[in-house]
Structures are given as C-alpha cells and as structure tokens.
C-alpha cells in the first residue's frame, strides 16, 4: 500500500499541498483528479523523492523511501526519461542493466503490443510512440506500484485507445496504479478509486463502483458536485 499522510508542500510562500492524505492499494487503480496546478504531479514526484516535502510522510509498503523503493514502484512521468540518442533497444538494455525487477519477456510483449520498432531512436519517435516507449519502461518492471502522470496528455486518439487497453490487460493486473489526469473521460470506466484534489487538499476520496451502486453517480457527476459548488 502507498500511504500519503498529511503531506505539505510549499513553493516559496505558496502551499501547493496543504495536508494531503490518501492511500493507494495493490490491485486497484487510483486516480488523482484535479485541474492543472492542483498538485497531482507534485504528489507523484513526492512519492518518488523527486521533490522535498515540508510536512507529513509517505510510506510504501509501510516503509519510507529508500533505494529499494524503485524495485517496488515504477514512475512514468509525462516526459520521456531516456536520452534522445538512445534506441529503444538501448533503453531496454539500460533498464535491464540497472533494475533487478526488469522483466525482459514482458518488455518484448509490450514492444509487440505497441508495435514499437526496437531500432528507432527516442528522438525520432512521435508523441504517441514516445508515450508508449515511456510505458514500456514503466510497465516492464515487476513492481507492486506504477505511478503514471497524465499518460493521455497530447496524444492521438488511436494511441489513447491502445494505452487505455493496457489498463484492462494482464500488464496491470494485481498491481497498484496511481494515475493523474485532468481528462477523466478516457479512463473513467477503468478506475477503482478517485481522489479529488483542489487547492492542495483532498476534497473527496471514494470507490467508484461503490459510488455508482449506492448513489448512482459517475465520477464526472461527483466532480461536477465538488468542483462546481
């Protein structure tokens, strides 16, 4: 489980996160929802120790961040994290070299699933294929949790469909996913838990299925209530 407890993050005097708390479980897809600037990316960066926090704590499987965390958590940011001159094959070799949890078989499956060419250089990839290469790196690790920052941002509809398909496949099964988006329509039917953020606080956290069954509301319905109040 990833536990985010009362996290405070300041940029200068501005509090971007003002006591954010939520949990993300293995086997569930948790979606952080909020408008641009709500602090979604900051939360993912904080979980991976890529930005310091000024209060609260973050635990991964009950432990604070350490070098071992990155064999348990994989981060897929909204930007490609490999050098432009590297070929996809070089990227796979690099990952295999540094991560014990790298799963070569799965990497090959994903390569085929996304129809990526292993000899293509990162710099030459289209926006959609860059996002897919990023997913290839993140999903091929045998980790408990995958963090994805805006995976659908700025890519074509076919690539979006292909990426959405990943969520219902064995590539995600049994793992915990935290995903951020401000375009909920693409994945509304896929998510298990929604965490609505506004002005650096969690306005609401709910299980989507439960909300549908008990109150007959979709995620968008709840968002409308929360954000348009």
């Amino acid at each position, binding site marked *: 489980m990833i536990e985010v407890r009362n996290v405070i993050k300041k940029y200068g005097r501005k509090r971007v996160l003002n006591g954010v708390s939520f949990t993300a479980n293995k086997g569930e897809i948790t979606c952080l929802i909020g408008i641009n600037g709500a602090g979604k990316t900051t939360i993912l960066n904080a979980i*991976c120790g*890529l930005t310091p926090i000024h209060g609260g704590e973050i635990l991964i499987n009950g432990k604070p961040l350490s070098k071992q965390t990155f064999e348990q958590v994989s981060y897929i940011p909204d*930007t490609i*994290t490999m050098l*432009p001159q590297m070929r996809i094959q070089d990227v796979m070799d690099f990952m295999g070299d*540094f991560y014990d949890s790298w799963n070569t078989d799965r990497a090959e499956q994903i390569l085929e699933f996304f129809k990526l060419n292993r000899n293509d250089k990162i*710099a030459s990839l289209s926006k959609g294929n860059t996002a897919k290469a990023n997913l290839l790196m993140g999903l091929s690790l045998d980790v408990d949790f995958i963090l994805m920052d805006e995976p659908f941002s700025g890519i074509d509809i076919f690539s979006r469909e292909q990426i959405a398909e990943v969520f219902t496949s064995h590539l995600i099964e049994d793992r915990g996913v935290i995903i951020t988006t401000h375009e909920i329509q693409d994945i509304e039917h896929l998510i298990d838990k929604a965490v609505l953020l506004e002005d650096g606080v969690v306005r609401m956290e709910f299980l989507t299925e439960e909300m549908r069954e008990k109150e007959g509301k979709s995620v968008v319905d709840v968002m409308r209530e929360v954000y348009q109040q």
Partner: protein
Amino acid sequence: MTRLFKLINFEFNRIFKILLVLLISVVTIQMVGTVKISLVYLNEIQHALEMGMSIEEIHTNYGQISFQRVTGSLWFVGPIFLGIVSVLFYIFLIWYRDWYGKNTFIYRLLTLPTERINIYLAKLVTILLMTLSFVSIQIIAMPLEIKLMSWIVPEQHYIHISAREALTNHIELSFIFKSTFTEFAIWYGIGIISVAMIFTGILFERSYRLLGIGLGIGYIILSVLLFLMPVWIHIMLDDYFYPDELYKLFILSALVVFALSTWTASYLLRKKIRV
C-alpha cells in the same frame, strides 16, 4: 558497487564521442603547428643561405630550433587550453544537461535503485577520466610531435630535447604536467576535491534554485577556507609547523573537505533535490 561502475561506464560513454573528437583535435592542431613552425624556420634558413650567410652566421642570427619553439607557441598551448576549458565547461554541463536537455534524464537517474550518491560519484569519476584522457594524450603525442620535427628539420639545425624537458621548462604548463607521482597525486587530488566542492555547490542550486545559488557559492567559499585552515594556523602561530607537519595537515583538511562535500551532496540528493 556494481551499479556505481555501470553508472560510471554510462556517464563516460555519454561524453566519449565528443571527447574523442577533442582529443583528435588537440593532437592534429599540435601536429600541424609543429610542421608549420618547422617549415617557417626552414624558410628563414633557406632565405639566409640565399643571402650568402654561412651556417655559423645563420645559427648566430636565427638560432637552432628545438621543440621548445613549438611548446611556446599558440599551436601547442591553444589545444591544451581548449582541453582545460572543455573540462571546466563539462563540470557544469554534466549536471545541467540532465535537467535542461531535450529529455529530462534526471527523472531516470534519481529513480534508479541505487544510492543517489553514486550519481554524484559517477559524474566525478567521469570528469577525472576526461582530464586524465587529455593529459595522457598529450604525454603520448609529444614524443611523436618531437619525432616529426626531427624528420622535417635537418640535424645540423636541430637541438633535441625530450618531452619531459620541454614540459619542465614550460612554466605555464607545469601545473598540469607533474614530474613526480607525489606531486601528481597532490595536484590532481586538489583538483578532484575542487570538482567535488563545485558539484555540491551545483546541487545546492538544483535543490534550492535561486536561494541555492547563494548557498552554493557560500558552501564553496567555506570549503576553500576550511581547506586553507592549516596555512592560517601556520601564519597566525608564527610558522609553528614543520613543513612535514603542514603537509600532513593539508592532506587532513583535504580529506575533511572531500568528506564534507560528498556527505552534503548525499543529503541534498536524498532529501532536497528537485526535478
């Protein structure tokens, strides 16, 4: 440990092609310089002979030529400074390219399952390897350049000096090329510690941005003062230490500064760094 070596290998490979081009440029420019200086000298001799001067008169007026004429020229010193400037520039680029490059590679580096200080150490070793590459290529190239000059210039006009002699006589370059291992270890040790200090300064800036520039500069100034502390004490206590004691104190202060730099860098990388 294995991941540290893998990181060193990866970092060095990132600069390898450019480094190779620079090394080839250094040797090529110096070789061209050697040929040019030799030919200019031969032209002077030829001109003098045509004027009816004897060999003795020519030697009195123009002197004989040795490789020192090359080491004193821009053809030789220029490429060396090109190497120095490249290393100095790369000390900063090696960090900033990971944040401001086309792709933000720092995300990947910081999420590798290894101690983050290994990133720092790998970059430090890369700078050292880069520096040693320039020094080694120079040491290898000089005897060849000397040989080249001896082929071009007739023996009667040529005075042979060894590469070592050429460098020892060159005051400006004596801080790069050391004649004893101890001297080499001391000067390059100081070099490594200086780079470590600058790296930590850069990490202050990367952690605290604008405020970090002040913190980084402050850190570097404090480290330099700490390093020079034995001299301070020595002067304040009226030449209190024997040279041997002063030397040992310098080694101690250098080790303290290096330890402080790596410890601070490790703390910043673990707790304060921002992508």
